[in-house]
């Protein structure tokens, strides 16, 4: 999509608009050709009104005063967007902001709209409203490219579907004649990775117990979103619990609540029998929670610090990093060298900064660091995101090894290979709730995909004769 919008240039291939071959070097070119992009992460200035956001950069089109206001109202009425030009964007809810983004591109005369995961953050009624808008656009002759994970929605709104997997087009489908099962197969591949046959290492000693965890957030326009709702699960020693789900369904908040960076509204968290619901982050980590963060640059490493100082991060009060109140750089350095050796971190030395390592090696260092403190529970959030295949395999091996030794692991990931390959138990998270559970050995792609997109719930059974 970046290429279509002029933010990146392709190495190969052609783009043709209305039969004419085109090439874009910046978004301005794309806009001039009538292509408008509605980003997944809105590019809106909160403190500005809708009018100001829409006209910014395009003041020459209709000025910035009443003419522009009239034009906005015109477009809004024509497509049923219900946008008020003088509303402050900050006061708008998510669905309204999205409409402002749509209006922005229409204002500039776009005839082809690209919507990137538009329903990722919408509640069902808002989704319906959006689709009604899209139908209006279609009726006026505009073209819409709608990118989404959500199979049900795609089927209901599209005239034609193209499936892309790992950067390649794998097929097209006609919504009238396709089922979610077939779509899921195309998306995920008809073969899911088969988990290795292995001895189950799951014990019956509970390590992490979460009950009734809930967290709410109120939108500026009064809509209360249940970010987390009644989350409860137990992870035993030697068990990997995988939580599947599309990003934005509460996984980040769940992890932050478990680590102590966010306070939930209600619920109890117990680690190895102790209630840690009110314990500060440092104590939780000292008590044996290892944490591989989703965003390693923000939460996992200090980019400009040398590797051995990064080894200390998160465990500054524990051996071998410190003795009493004093740091022990010598021991930390020695241990960093050990981690580099054992976890195959490719680096010329331990004095280089973390920023100079590749993502995969940074991640291996983080994994090594967390494992080195004999954690009881490892929280791994997208542990192999942005990591090369080789490092990925190594990290998986490390997790399996630790599991054999009795480690409990909470694995949150959007990578189905990872989830199926590592988990002993599988749950699905959707809109802040755990809606389904499944056995990784027997789960089918369409069941998993359906649950992840909200179309299925409960215990997912492999039922070959079942049709969606």
């Amino acid at each position, binding site marked *: 999509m970046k290429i279509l919008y002029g933010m990146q240039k392709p190495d190969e291939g052609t783009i043709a608009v209305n039969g004419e071959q085109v090439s874009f070097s910046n978004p301005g070119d794309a806009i001039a050709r009538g292509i408008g992009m509605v980003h997944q992460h809105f590019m809106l200035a909160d403190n500005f009104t809708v009018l100001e956001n829409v006209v910014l950069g395009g003041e020459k089109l209709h000025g910035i005063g009443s003419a522009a206001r009239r034009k906005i109202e015109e477009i809004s009425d024509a497509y049923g967007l219900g946008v008020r030009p003088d509303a402050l964007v900050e006061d708008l809810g998510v669905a309204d902001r999205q409409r402002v983004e749509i209006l922005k591109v229409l204002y500039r005369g776009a005839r082809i709209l690209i919507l990137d995961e538009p329903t990722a953050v919408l509640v069902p009624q808002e989704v319906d409203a959006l689709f009604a808008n899209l139908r209006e656009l279609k009726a006026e002759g505009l073209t819409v490219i709608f990118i989404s994970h959500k199979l049900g929605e795609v089927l209901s709104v599209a005239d034609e579907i193209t499936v892309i997997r790992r950067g390649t087009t794998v097929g097209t489908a006609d919504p009238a004649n396709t089922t979610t099962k077939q779509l899921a197969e195309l998306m995920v591949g008809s073969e899911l990775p088969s988990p290795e046959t292995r001895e189950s290492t799951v014990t019956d000693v509970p390590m992490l117990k979460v009950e009734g965890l809930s967290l709410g957030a109120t939108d500026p326009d009064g809509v209360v979103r249940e970010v987390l709702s009644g989350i409860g699960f137990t992870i035993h020693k030697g068990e990997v619990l995988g939580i599947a789900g599309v990003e934005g369904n509460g996984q980040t908040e769940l992890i932050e609540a478990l680590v102590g960076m966010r306070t939930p509204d209600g619920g109890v968290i117990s680690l190895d029998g102790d209630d840690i619901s009110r314990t500060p*982050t440092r104590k939780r980590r000292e008590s044996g929670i290892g944490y591989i963060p989703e965003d390693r640059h923000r939460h996992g490493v*200090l980019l400009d610090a040398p590797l051995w100082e990064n080894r200390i991060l*998160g465990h500054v009060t524990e051996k071998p990093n410190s003795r009493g109140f004093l*740091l022990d750089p010598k021991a930390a350095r020695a241990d960093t060298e050990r981690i580099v050796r054992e976890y*195959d971190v490719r680096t*010329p030395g331990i004095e280089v900064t973390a*920023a100079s390592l590749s993502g995969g090696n940074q991640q291996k260092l983080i994994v090594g660091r967390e494992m080195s403190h004999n954690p009881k529970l490892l929280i791994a959030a997208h542990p192999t995101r942005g990591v090369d295949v080789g490092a990925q395999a190594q990290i998986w091996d490390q997790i399996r090894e630790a599991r054999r030794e009795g480690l409990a692991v909470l694995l949150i990931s959007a990578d189905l290979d990872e989830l199926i390959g590592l988990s002993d138990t599988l749950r699905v998270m959707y809109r802040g709730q755990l809606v389904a559970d499944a056995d990784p050995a027997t789960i089918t792609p369409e069941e998993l995909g359906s649950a992840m997109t909200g179309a299925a719930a409960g215990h997912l059974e492999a039922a070959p004769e079942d049709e969606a």
Partner: protein
Amino acid sequence: MKKFDKDRLILGFAGPALALVVAFALSTLVLLISNRDPFELYRLLFEQVSYSDVQVLIINQAGTYYLAALAVAVGFRMNLFNIGVDGQYRLAAMVAALVGASVTLPGPLQIALIVIVAMLVGAFWAGIAGILKTTRGVSEVVATIMLNSISTSLIAWLILPTNFGDQAAGSNNLTTGEIPEAGWFPGLPLSPDAGEIYGFTFVAAGCGLVYWLVLNRTRFGFDLRATGASESAAQASGVDAKKMILTSMLISGAIAGLVGMPTLLGDTHTYSLDFPVGLGFTGITIALLGRNHPVGIALSALLIAFLDKASSPLDQFGFEKEIATIMQGLIVISVVVSYELVRRYGTRRQQQKVGEELAAGHALTTEKEAAL
């Protein structure tokens, strides 16, 4: 690994070196434009250093500057801007002098009392800004600047003869009374002509050592540096950001409180209206130039003190002594720009080199490889 150390060392010096070169070039330009002979000026400045009394002055001044810079540096490492060192040290010196003049304890205790009072007052004054920041979100920059001015007024009021001050007969100067000899910090006499080096200068050097130790060798120091580098990562690692901010401001204020001690305990033995002012702002310059590193700050303190003291007799030779102030300003600007440039270059270069090293197969041997 040795290669990288050499690289870091070079880059470490490149910043200040580049800055000083640019600053001196610009100063030369200024001198030329104002029709003065730059080389004559530099010659005169360097000539001053050969006089032992000037040397003593420089060392004493550097000691004071060093403490001011340390106070600022503690804040900088936390991304906090304690511009209020000036107000903190003056208030601290005044109150400490008052207390020192009103009690008499045996020698070391008297000195200890004065020093502790100074540190507490400094910490308190900085703490006000710290609390305003952590509880009300007030920028510590504006808050500390306001507190500077308020402290001036507060001192002026406290030192009134009707309050706590003393006015010697026939003098316009207000003082806080003489501190008894028990509270005089012994100095190091160099020679009868040269004068004494303040004893507290050595304490200042000791503070530098403590600063380095705490920041680099303790858990608390690690947390502090981590918070300054990346608040989100520090938080994920268990640091309470608000507590850290307040603690840093308190520490910074406590060190600021020490800034007046060399002069108070080694020279004036009283706080009066002509107690040195403006040291806090010079401290900022020096902390920036020294890159918040105790050795860098020491060298920078010496440099700035040198500029200061060596330039005062310039008037006699037909130069304006304010050139030193301009040089200071030019140094600050060259410093901040060149450090940023060097930093960016350094990051890029390291990434490149690491890539090259790995490609050339110079990675540390890992088990995986050893097993092959």
